[in-house]
């Protein structure tokens, strides 16, 4: 048996029909967060694709550990529908008594628009909204003033498929922790949307819910939250946002956030 046959022998110990059910549930939740053109036109709950076994199996699977995972399964595992009608929307949570710190720019017509804003949300989270890829260092400085060591990069439109996943900059180091600890800390620092945005949930079955978005509908989804109190000493964030195609803004932007070791070279 040569080395390639031995490798195949090793691979064959892992069943080929194992289903990544949790991965399917996470993708499904992500897809449901994206507006469907058909849904917008219909003005009512869209007829979503009937998801096959890997999605429904999640509802019957025992939760492995942790409330986060259970919450994820509860949200994503069931039959989830997002109602878009204006009559059904619930209250917004992002209420700023004072104007939110922002970076503005002037358009060709003279109007001033906010490239990004940072507001205080419920539970002390910082709600960051990036609408235009401008002034990353200004946003990083503002986040630092809120106690979030952060490095921001807006790389722009520079992707080809095989190299589109960027890694953290050379001047930054990943924190030395187990993958599970990293993932759990990342979830605490970057709480999932349903943890800070008021999304009203109505149970319609054993594992089925209807989620109602706050005013603004999907436009509010360009925001994300950072919980400063969850950031331990020595940890910072590397946040990058980019447009997959020229001219994309707001909810069309892609974003990735990694934990890094806070240092003068990396997070300033």
């Amino acid at each position: 048996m040569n080395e390639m046959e031995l490798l195949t022998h090793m691979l064959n110990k892992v069943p080929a029909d194992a289903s990544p059910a949790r991965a399917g549930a996470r993708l499904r939740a992500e897809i449901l967060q994206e507006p469907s053109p058909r849904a917008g036109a219909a003005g009512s709950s869209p007829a979503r694709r009937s998801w096959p076994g890997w999605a429904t199996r999640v509802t019957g699977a025992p939760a492995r550990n942790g409330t986060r995972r259970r919450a994820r399964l509860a949200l994503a595992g069931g039959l989830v529908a997002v109602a878009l009608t204006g009559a059904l929307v619930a209250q917004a949570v992002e209420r700023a008594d004072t104007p939110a710190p922002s970076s503005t720019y002037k358009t060709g017509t003279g109007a001033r628009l906010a490239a990004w804003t940072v507001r205080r949300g419920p539970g002390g989270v910082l709600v960051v909204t990036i609408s235009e890829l401008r002034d990353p260092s200004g946003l990083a400085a503002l986040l630092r003033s809120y106690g979030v060591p952060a490095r921001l990069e807006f790389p722009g439109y520079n992707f080809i498929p095989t190299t589109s996943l960027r890694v953290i900059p050379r001047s930054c180091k990943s924190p030395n922790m187990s993958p599970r600890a990293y993932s759990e800390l990342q979830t605490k620092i970057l709480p999932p949307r349903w943890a800070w945005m008021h999304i009203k949930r109505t149970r319609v079955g054993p594992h089925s819910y209807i989620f109602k978005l706050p005013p603004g509908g999907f436009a509010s989804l360009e925001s994300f939250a950072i919980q400063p109190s969850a950031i331990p000493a020595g940890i910072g964030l590397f946040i990058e946002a980019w447009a997959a195609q020229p001219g994309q803004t707001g909810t069309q932007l892609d974003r990735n956030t990694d934990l890094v070791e806070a240092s003068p070279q990396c997070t300033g």
Partner: protein
Amino acid sequence: MPSERRSGPQDDDAAVIASSLADPDQFAVLFERHAPLLYRYVARRLGRDVAEDVVAETFLHAFRQRASYHSDCPDARPWLYGIATRLVGRHRRAEIRQYRALARTGVDQVAESFTEAVEARVSAAWQCRRLAAELAALPAAYRDVLLLVAWAELTYDEAALTLGVPVGTVRSRLSRARARLRKQLGREPAGGAHEQVSGSLPHPRVEL
């Protein structure tokens, strides 16, 4: 009422991704098509639990970046495995740890996690243990190429596309990786394997 174009099994990946731009639900077709084998590949490298997260992240990245997919690539596997391989790179220590554990103890923790057996069975053959020891010792670039070809079953061209390197580089890395494995596997049990991993190895068992 306008007719809807739904992706089907006859559509190539590029067509599915293109249709998912207008109808995000269509991206589920890509998941159904590639997630099981991608999961198997990642699970073999990192173990079952981490593989779930890596596969999830892979498809989330792919979904968010699908607008930038090159429509002239009908097979999305190089794209997906490229993302997955970069994510696997973040767990390099965990990967090497499980290879070393297999080499040291003979217990294949990855395989065990997929079985219902409660007790840990020392079932890995002697050669597998040596192979694991050498996998842990391989440079990451060699290991990525080797496992993309051996475990993900990508062609040289696809592996090159996946890693963003020329095909010649894939060939040379694969050749060197295989030569190192052959050299290691060809040694007598009392030889180099002991030097690669800490702890003593029992007498080899003939299982293959």
